[in-house]
């Protein structure tokens, strides 16, 4: 990481702390914002957060590693979380899982080489009456079929063009 990048990260996280407060109870909201902006919580980011909240960086690591929506490893722009819990399982999540792997070329817990997609399992996302269900970032898709997988991924790819453009123009999403 370049020094200038580090400086930018530190500045941005400091601005976050100014907005969210420097109490311990601000830790998870801060980490959520870092995750959303940088698609990961890097070791350097953890150190900065720890400095700002005046806690040990291991405290930050222990929280970041506990929750499934926070991650140290870099994620794709679109995180796909397929529900694997009982009702979605009975509704046919295995076929959807297989097609997701076929179309993305990666397994669960992996990210595509172009950094666009991460594929993960989710535990019950509360769509049990309309399974199989999955989340793409914050968006929920119900009654997904293997055929629909392609549509969902294509819709993401089209959006990705927009995101890439915004990032290039200096408006981080």
């Amino acid at each position, binding site marked *: 990481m370049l020094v200038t990048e580090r400086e930018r990260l530190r500045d941005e996280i400091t601005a976050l702390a100014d907005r969210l407060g420097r109490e311990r109870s601000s830790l*998870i909201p801060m980490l959520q914002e870092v995750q959303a902006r940088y698609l990961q919580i890097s070791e350097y980011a953890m150190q900065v957060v720890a400095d700002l909240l005046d806690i040990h960086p291991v405290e930050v690591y222990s929280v970041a590693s506990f929750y499934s929506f926070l991650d140290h490893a870099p994620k794709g722009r679109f995180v796909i*979380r397929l529900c694997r819990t009982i009702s979605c399982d009975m509704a046919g999540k295995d076929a959807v899982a297989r097609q997701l792997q076929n179309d993305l070329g990666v397994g669960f817990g992996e990210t595509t080489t172009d950094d666009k997609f991460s594929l993960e399992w*989710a535990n019950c996302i509360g769509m049990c009456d309309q399974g199989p269900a999955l989340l793409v970032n914050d968006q929920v898709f119900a009654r997904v079929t293997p055929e629909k997988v392609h549509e969902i991924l294509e819709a993401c790819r089209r959006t990705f063009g927009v995101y890439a453009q915004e990032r290039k123009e200096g408006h981080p999403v």
Partner: protein
Amino acid sequence: MSKQQQPGLPTFAAMTPGAGLKAAIGRNRADIIGEISASGIKGRGGAGFPVGVKWNLCAAARGDLKYVVCNADEGEPGTFKDRLILMEHPDLVFEGMTIGGLTVGAREGIVYLRAEYMYLRRPLEAVLAKRREAKLLGQDILGKSGFTFDIRIQMGAGAYVCGEETALIESLEGHRGEPRNRPPFPVDTGYLDRPTVVNNVETLAWVACILQKGAPWFKSVGTEKSTGLKIFSVSGDCDRPGVYEFPLGITVAKLLDTVGGQDAKAVQVGGASGYCVPKSEFHRVIAYEDVSTGGAIIVFGRDRDMLDIAANFLDFFTEESCGQCTPCRDGNPRLLEGVELLREGRCSMRYLNELCGLGETMQLASKCGLGQSSPNAFLSIVKHFKDEIMGRVPAGH
């Protein structure tokens, strides 16, 4: 391909928004707690603690700052009613929280919303903004001088255990979601060590209804120990899955009739942490005194393999255990291994009995509700489906 129109939430839809809060504001604390206690309402999240008792304890606790927390960390497999309540009747939930603030003397309410429901955040914030404009939140609510209360939303970050109230509080405070020892209970030592009431989404909505319609109205349905209507989330092998409203005390058989699940061989009542009711027990009633539930009903059709179901639940608990206490952290993987042995047809009766003993130990020795209830499904499946799960001949033999 909606199998049919969702039955929805007719009772909540018939309420007049704001009427419950208006009724509460003219009454004193003891009076409000009396009304809630008289209704007999118990926690709708699953644990079934009497709401009147909880509020009374928090109101009596000493502290200059108190909190009302709405538990919107709906994560129990098979449960989705809180999602619908938050989408369609958020005002009732916020109203219940505000009544809670008035009653226990809190100035701040926090909605702990699960990460998976991030898409609800923006609409909920919009409802909160409208309530502030209408003077239903903020300073001197509805002109009552000195009554200040506001609500903020804090997102969860993906952990089932945070539905347990002390783990939820840990998470709000910026820690890992590891449950605390109880006592002390949150009503005296809760968020930031202040007296805190934690209630489920549905419970808070019902409180707003009770203040509007009165305790006798609420008690007019249900059983003596389980009063009122309850919202159910129905999924699995039935013709009409969705959200339903039933009086507590309904039999499993009657519920199955309504949702079109008459062919079921078993029903999981209470989600992964609940009890698997076999066909021979469909006469049992769903109520706190018999088969208790937070509202999850998962229907298993006649072709389902009960070991697949047990494995799915145990996978879930193995993944979601916070890892803090040994019975839960190490017990669930052991039970899961046992299910694998059963699948391969290599489990002796003696070992199966040992596993059941382990399950009972987990029920007794785990620190929180997650560990204590995690072996329930396994134990009830073993109890009722021995012929199906034992002596299996693996494919190819």
